[in-house]
């Protein structure tokens, strides 16, 4: 069955910092510092999102980098497919 979308892993949290997003995984624990600036709001992955869905106002030129970032978050286990 195809996954409906992606969401923050239940063992993870994220918040906005000056440099961008700070991800925390309590299993480990481990941190991920993402220099995303204000491109993605911290609560963005709090609800299920399609993998290619981004906040309104994201420019076409920003999308490939964000898509790569989402893939990395999935690979590192900070996001999971629902």
């Amino acid at each position, binding site marked *: 069955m195809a996954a409906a979308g992606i969401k923050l892993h*239940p063992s993870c*949290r994220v*918040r*906005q*910092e*000056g*440099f961008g997003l*700070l991800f*925390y995984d*309590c*299993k*480990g*624990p481990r*941190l991920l*510092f993402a*220099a995303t600036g204000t491109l993605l709001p911290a609560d963005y992955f709090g609800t299920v999102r399609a993998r290619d869905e981004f906040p309104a106002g994201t420019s076409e030129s920003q999308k490939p980098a964000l898509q790569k970032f989402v893939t990395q978050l999935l690979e590192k286990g900070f996001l999971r497919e629902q």
Partner: protein
Amino acid sequence: MSNKYVEMGMRSPVNLTWEVTLACNLRCNHCLSSSGEKACNELSTAEALDLVEQLHTARVFQVNFGGGEPFIRPDFEEILAACHARGIMTCISTNGTLITAELVNRLATNPLVAIQVSLDGARRETCDAVRGDGVFDAAIAAVKLLAATKIPASINTVLTTHNASEIPAMHDLARSLGVSLRVSRFRPSGRGADNWESLRPTPAQLLTFSDWLAKSGDVRTGDSFFSLTTQERQGLGLNLCGAAKLTCCVSPTGHMYPCAFLQSDRFEAGDLRVKKFQEIWDTSEIYASFRNLRIHSCEECTRFDQCHGGCPAVAWHLKNDINGGDPECLERCVTSIADNRLDLAA
């Protein structure tokens, strides 16, 4: 290499240690907080719940509860529930003696809790020599109750000279019980300072442990051994002291400190009865001094990029110098063993 994002300063701690009470039914001879009797003027339930709200507003990810024995506080489950209702993850350090099947069943209903049971030896005699008679059996019973649930559970062992040779057996014991092992570095604070010389691991034991740790990737240390970290474990933590940068400590009376091992007037960052949590985090001069701490005496060392001067709390307690460099870092352990050999040869 230092972490440039940590250097930029965090809006709030990632996690913090909250010692909810000084009351404890045990009198461990290594106890960092010299726990026993409840402190006068501990935070009331209302004050504790208000603090949880402030931590939520500050977006603190996780609270690590310690003490004293947290389960002695009659309102402890209420404080936990307030954290969980706000999505704050919790980890409880307990001596295990007050853990019952009913308590475990209640705790298991919440996915945001993790529990670490302290056990200071693989053998009953070793553990009970530090923690008191009967504690080993009680702690093992608690671990078994927890392991039968979905609660992430671990055994936490403080490395001392008496249990250093039992650490691999602790690892086997934890595995056989179905939980993970966490080993913490012994710090000279509280009764741990009084009993430092009789409990501290020798440099040779620290080096043996460092080698073993390098091969035991599933053993966690809460980054407390970053001063001994070998290349193999470099990727497993940030390898720096997180005090006042990524973490801090709240005492039973609502005073804030850089870490649990530096709870004295000299290091008080603020009083939660006087100021808000966020204000203390943002404006405390003590916290600012920790964020700017540079261990210049270590900068020439080849391992500086890996350990950044080690644990300031150990340097403070042993050398009375917060900038003094960790006297028990890997490099100094090697040097001290070599010096001993030269002395013997002379």
